[in-house]
């Protein structure tokens, strides 16, 4: 050999910039808001100004007469098929409104201004009905009934149990019981909600949609709009943030379709920011009562939980958060006896959808507050107490969740070591002078790490082609919502096929050409879509190596693909350009093209009627440590550092995963310290960024992170999902840090100055007005 060849390089774990970043930094990325079709009209929705009322009449005649108006619709003009998980939400409400966002009429006009003008001309007469704003009031005898189908205002209940809580109580040396109150927050995607509906002459419908689940979206939308699913074509433009908010079908989407049909022109609906606050989903608020116990040796004995979920006026995915919450209750630490009862209650408040973490932020806030309380009660440090109860790989939790890998103990020790937790925790507790008190607190999390089998399939399809120039095109079912799945998929494919990243493109926005996928949720995309893409690439790799072997007369086992070349695997010697091989295959030898496909189905199961069974192929663990200062005179809480140790299986894109952790932690800090969608007797009173505060650049804490690589045997290259985890336990860590600083425990989020001062004064025995 006269030439030195570079040893095999791996892309896995490298810092790879997002494939779509150049178009986004240059302003050329096209979001829904940027798309304008020829002849397109602008749709606007009239939302009720009542909370609970019977609609007596709607007069749209003046609106219809306004020049420039092409269609004015009310419920009478539509099929009236309800949508959403509970199928209780007609797109336009005809007889009754149940919460502040309710859609009662819609207009399509030449301009947004004309459409808004037309809305003002619509006259609605109401007859107000008694309303109810708290779950406890809604459950009272004689409470106003929100949906006649559910006279007790209880559309769903969930009961979960393993072990015997009474036995656990009897074994306990200490028992604690508290009620936690979790509040309304909302996603605050920088790109507001919107959609474009466009029919062709044959009745085929093209939707430019921000949905996170384009295939189920067609299924869910079809009966509501009366268009067969096979006639619906979903194109997802670049999506300006989702975080779960685009996991359901919402009334504005069928409304836009109805307008386009009536006007016989394409119609676009784009929310205003105020509308986004009023009429996009929230995180499920709830009242959570937890009773838990431990033995003197630090073993947790039982966890007994009941929750009342404020479902709002209609049912979206928020009503199903108990599925995820029960996994945390049953399986975050080793729990012998566990019971969880929940009641989902209709009120006249806004309704909730999916939001990063899906109930787990609320569950973990309570669990991890109790972990600290129990640890203190038995006189064991928070780190030691948690470590004593943490599972190991290979265990199956009593809910039937199998921990093929489990990095919880490593997460605990790593987060503690990096933050010097034990020393600081003890020092803070010893007492601090002055009005500023420092605190440090820890919390861990348990979450699905590779999807959740809530449908009979939790799979994702891939079609992969390698063209004559060794350019690889990956058609994936997975959607990109900014999280970076596109880049991870390209990396996994490039790695298998030994081609540079620049040779891989990912098509992930057109339902006509992409194979099926469940959608972006349950931290599943890297795991499920990654596995699917990797396996499709392996099939192509095998085809290429077989062809090369025949052509070169070298055994397949001695060949590899690197840097766009067929090489001798031991030496790296370049034998044949991949493009040449493909052209030879196509034009001469076999007249073949290289196209492969894969449908990856994870080895998880649907849970039984008792909610038992291994719902995800892997599970994510993490420990976060929060450090903060509390000004006991002003009530200000300043979180200045969060240390996050996450079991991620394996890092695929270091740049991407760091961004997920940093962004998730900051979202968690906001949830804990300031974000609050204020709902006053059903009305949202702070629908703007002026009054609903998300963190800004000067307010962020330092985020230190460590990745625990447990190399999941089922994960693509060993990886687990990471999308939701970073946001889940931050608030709980902050609550524990607050207690460490002040000796006062907070049971209600967020920790606003007013609430903090109130808690401190109450604890000090002062009168609070």
């Amino acid at each position, binding site marked *: 050999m006269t030439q030195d060849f570079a040893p095999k390089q791996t892309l896995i774990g490298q810092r790879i910039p997002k494939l779509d970043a150049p178009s986004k930094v240059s302003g050329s990325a096209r979001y829904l*808001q*940027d798309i304008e079709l020829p002849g397109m009209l602008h749709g606007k929705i009239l939302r009720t100004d009542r909370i609970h009322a019977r609609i007596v009449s709607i007069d749209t005649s003046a609106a219809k007469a306004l020049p420039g108006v092409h269609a004015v619709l009310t419920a009478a003009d539509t099929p009236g098929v309800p949508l959403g998980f509970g199928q209780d939400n007609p797109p336009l409400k005809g007889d009754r409104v149940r919460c502040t966002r309710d859609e009662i009429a819609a207009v399509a006009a030449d301009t947004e201004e004309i459409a808004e003008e037309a809305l003002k001309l619509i006259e609605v007469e109401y007859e107000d009905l008694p309303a109810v704003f708290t779950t406890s009031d809604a459950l009272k005898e004689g409470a106003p009934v929100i949906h006649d189908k559910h006279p007790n205002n209880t559309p769903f209940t969930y009961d979960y149990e393993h072990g015997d809580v009474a036995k656990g109580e009897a074994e306990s040396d200490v028992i604690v019981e508290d009620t936690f109150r979790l509040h309304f927050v909302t996603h605050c995607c*920088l790109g507001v909600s919107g959609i474009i509906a466009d029919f062709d002459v044959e009745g085929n419908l093209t939707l430019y949609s921000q949905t996170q689940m384009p295939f189920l979206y067609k299924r869910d939308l079809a009966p509501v709009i009366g268009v067969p699913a096979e006639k619906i074509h979903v194109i997802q433009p670049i999506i300006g943030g989702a975080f779960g908010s685009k996991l359901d079908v919402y009334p504005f989407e069928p409304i836009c379709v109805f307008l386009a049909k009536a006007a016989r022109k394409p119609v676009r609906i784009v929310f205003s920011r105020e509308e986004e606050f009023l009429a996009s989903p929230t995180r499920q608020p709830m009242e959570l009562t937890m009773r838990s116990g431990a033995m003197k040796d630090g073993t947790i004995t039982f966890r007994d939980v009941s929750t009342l979920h404020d479902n709002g006026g209609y049912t979206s995915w928020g009503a199903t958060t108990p599925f995820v919450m029960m996994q945390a209750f049953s399986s975050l630490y080793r729990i012998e006896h566990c019971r969880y009862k929940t009641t989902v209650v209709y009120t006249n408040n806004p309704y909730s959808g999916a939001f990063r973490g899906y109930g787990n932020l609320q569950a973990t806030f309570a669990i991890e507050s109790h972990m600290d309380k129990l640890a203190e009660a038995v006189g064991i440090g928070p780190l030691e107490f948690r470590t004593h109860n943490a599972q190991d790989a290979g265990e199956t939790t009593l809910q039937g969740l199998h921990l093929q890998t489990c990095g919880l103990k490593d997460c605990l020790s790593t987060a503690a070591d990096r933050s010097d937790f034990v020393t600081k925790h003890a020092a803070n507790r010893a007492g601090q002078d002055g009005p500023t008190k420092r605190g440090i607190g820890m919390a861990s999390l348990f979450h699905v790490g590779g999807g959740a089998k809530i449908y009979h399939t939790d799979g994702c399809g891939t079609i992969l082609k390698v063209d004559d120039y060794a350019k690889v095109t990956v058609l994936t079912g997975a959607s990109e919502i900014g999280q970076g799945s596109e880049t991870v998929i390209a990396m996994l494919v490039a790695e298998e096929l030994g081609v540079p990243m620049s040779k891989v493109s990912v098509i992930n926005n057109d339902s006509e050409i992409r194979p099926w996928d469940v959608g972006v949720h349950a931290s599943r995309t890297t795991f499920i879509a990654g596995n699917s893409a990797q396996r499709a690439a392996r099939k192509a790799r095998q085809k290429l190596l077989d062809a090369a072997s025949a052509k070169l007369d070298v055994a397949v086992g001695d060949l590899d693909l690197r840097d766009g070349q067929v090489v001798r695997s031991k030496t790296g010697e370049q034998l044949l350009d991949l493009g040449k091989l493909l052209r030879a295959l196509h034009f001469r030898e076999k007249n073949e093209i290289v196209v492969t496909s894969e449908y990856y189905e994870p080895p998880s199961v649907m849970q039984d009627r008792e909610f038992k069974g291994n719902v995800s192929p892997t599970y994510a663990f993490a420990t976060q440590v929060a450090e903060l200062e509390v000004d006991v005179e002003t009530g200000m809480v300043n979180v200045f550092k969060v240390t996050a140790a996450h079991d991620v299986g394996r890092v695929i894109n270091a740049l991407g995963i760091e*961004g997920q952790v940093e*962004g*998730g932690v*900051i979202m968690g800090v906001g949830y804990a310290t300031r974000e609050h969608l204020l709902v006053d007797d059903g009305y949202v009173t702070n629908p703007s960024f*002026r009054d609903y505060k998300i963190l800004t650049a000067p307010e962020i804490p330092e985020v230190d992170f460590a990745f625990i690589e447990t190399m999941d045997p089922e994960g693509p290259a060993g990886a687990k999902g990471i999308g939701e985890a970073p946001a889940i336990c931050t608030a709980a860590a902050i609550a524990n840090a607050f207690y460490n600083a002040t000796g006062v425990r907070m049971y209600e989020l967020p920790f606003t100055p007013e609430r903090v001062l109130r808690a401190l004064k109450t604890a000090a025995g002062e009168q609070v007005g």
Partner: protein
Amino acid sequence: MSFKQEISFTLNGDLTTASIPVHMDTLTMLRDVLQLTGTKLGCGEGECGACTILVDGAATNSCLMFAVDCDGRDIQTIEGVQTEDGLDLLQKEFVEKGAVQCGFCTPGLVMQGTAMLNENPGMSEDEIKRGLEGNLCRCTGYTKVIDATASAMAKTRGEGQG
């Protein structure tokens, strides 16, 4: 309603004239009249910074500025940032440092960062954070945006690696 006014201004280096309704804001003019959709509408209330442009070099919320007030000014939008060779220094740093996720806030952040870079490439980290205060980002948690801005400043100062 639709009284219009003729205005002329420099837009991304080119002299531009437009006939604009007097009530129209600059963001709407850029997006709907001039078809420059890189500048984003995040709130329309001056709270999120997604619509940031440079007006005579100063970072400005274009949603709060009447379009007619562009008359005679030098306006730069995200479309005017890149050079003939492609992305400019700050844009490249945003890409390489992972400062972009969903990207909706990104054009505004790039414009804000550009103004800061032009004004004082010697900013401390705290000054950078304060400079970015008016630009909301829901995805990244800002850390990588701050890193990218600091790195571009260091390179501008001739310090190579930021």
